[in-house]
């Protein structure tokens, strides 16, 4: 009984320590982002690694999701003779929800894992210590470029994913379900409002922060060689997945109840 309670207590303290560490890293990263010197080259390198290199996987994920959405909704909509609304359904669910979340999950799996593994390897081979002895701040040198790159690339990838998904829906809607092409486009763009796209993008900015900070935090606190790097990578992905879904839920509720978006 006592063991059980003290274990619970330990877990809770561990949780507090973790959240504290993550928060401190986030604050220091944001702060360091605004402190000169500003270097363009590392940020651009990260933008290529994070953004451009993620285009194919985001393309595939969102294309298939758009297609599946169209097919699954057709199953119901056809019964109600409301096939036309498939276009609106695909467009709205992608921009408001699936585009940001799926893109973030894919990027967390691809980029979050690689950031955690890279920083973790640097930690265990003492490269992060070396950076400090060379009077450079690891947060400024390693975390900030990744943070800035992810912060701007994830929303861009999300817009790209939205468009690809809509095209996927179009392919099914027009070529398989025989909706007229210009009708499909009308039904896609008409119900779509700025706020639908904006709420999606606000989410993806938040997801970018989650992915970067969790991956860097996990990477920089690795102890104990290759095994530690492996488990940090897994943890970075799992924790960012959970936080992305939780944050999505929170934001959706906030937009819905708070601003009736």
């Amino acid at each position, binding site marked *: 009984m006592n063991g059980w309670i003290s274990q619970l207590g330990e877990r809770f303290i561990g949780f507090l320590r973790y959240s504290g560490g993550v928060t401190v890293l986030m604050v220091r990263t944001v702060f360091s982002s605004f402190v000169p010197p500003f270097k363009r080259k590392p940020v651009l390198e990260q933008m290529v690694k994070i953004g451009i290199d993620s285009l194919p996987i985001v393309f595939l994920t969102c294309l298939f999701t758009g297609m599946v959405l169209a097919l699954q909704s057709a199953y119901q909509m056809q019964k109600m003779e409301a096939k036309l609304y498939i276009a609106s359904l695909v467009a709205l669910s992608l921009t408001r929800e699936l585009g940001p979340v799926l893109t973030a999950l894919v990027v967390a799996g691809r980029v979050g894992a690689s950031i955690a593994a890279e920083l973790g390897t640097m930690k265990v081979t003492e490269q992060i210590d*070396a950076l400090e002895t060379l*009077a*450079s701040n690891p947060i400024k040198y390693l975390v900030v470029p990744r943070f800035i790159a992810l912060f701007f690339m994830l929303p861009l990838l999300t817009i790209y994913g939205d468009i690809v998904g809509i095209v996927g829906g179009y392919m099914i809607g027009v070529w398989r379900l025989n909706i007229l092409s210009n009708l499909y486009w009308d039904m896609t763009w008409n119900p779509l409002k700025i706020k639908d796209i904006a709420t999606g993008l606000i989410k993806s900015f938040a997801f970018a922060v989650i992915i970067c900070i969790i991956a860097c935090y996990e990477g920089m606190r690795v102890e104990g060689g290759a095994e530690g790097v492996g488990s940090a990578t897994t943890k970075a992905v799992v924790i960012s997945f959970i936080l992305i879904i939780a944050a999505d839920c929170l934001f959706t509720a906030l937009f819905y109840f708070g601003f009736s978006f």
Partner: protein
Amino acid sequence: MIELINLCKAFDDHVVLDNVNLTIRDGETIVIIGRSGTGKSVMLKHIIGLMKPDSGQVIIDGQDVTRLGGKELNDLRLKFGMLFQGAALFDSLNVRDNVAFSLIEHTKMDDATIDKRVAECLELVGLKGIENLRPSELSGGMRKRVGLARAICMDPKIILYDEPTTGVDPIMADAVNDLIKDLQSKLRTTAIAVTHDMTSAYKIADRIAMLYKGKIVEIGTPEEIKNTSNPLVKQFITGAATGPITEDS
């Protein structure tokens, strides 16, 4: 002058440094010997402020390193060069950018001057013309020497060497020893070297200190260490398998 005063450090309940006291004079080369895992690297990391002690102080030119942070600590670190045990080269940069790291980050030198300085440093460690290689393309001994070039690139006043000759072939090891001696005589650098290579220790040291079970158990000139009566030190420098030092210590 570098002073370690009552330095204590434990990881959980594993005591690594137990009231270490040591004074290192300006311009002196001191060699710390001791078995693997006694805390030699941990001691170096305290001197440059990478680790914070549980208690005690590290005073460098009147400043307590353990209390410094941020900019003050970085300013102090610019006076340091450190060679890590595993070299700790940056995988993502080529040799030139590794060696020139501080020059690029902390000085306004133009590229041509940097190239020249990097070439000089690489020549000093016997690795001319490998600027464009990646650390992954180097052997262990070469990495060590690139690490050495990076440590001396800014003409530091204090250099910390963590096992400078381990993994380097015997001929090159002797060259590394010569380099350490040279730097000391020409630039009057203060050097703290950690090693268990006794040949190297005798060659470069002004004084040798032995760390054992978290304490400095003996300190003296190479002559004094050679002729010591302390059984711990005797066993270590002769490399005998039997003696007061046992497997579990």
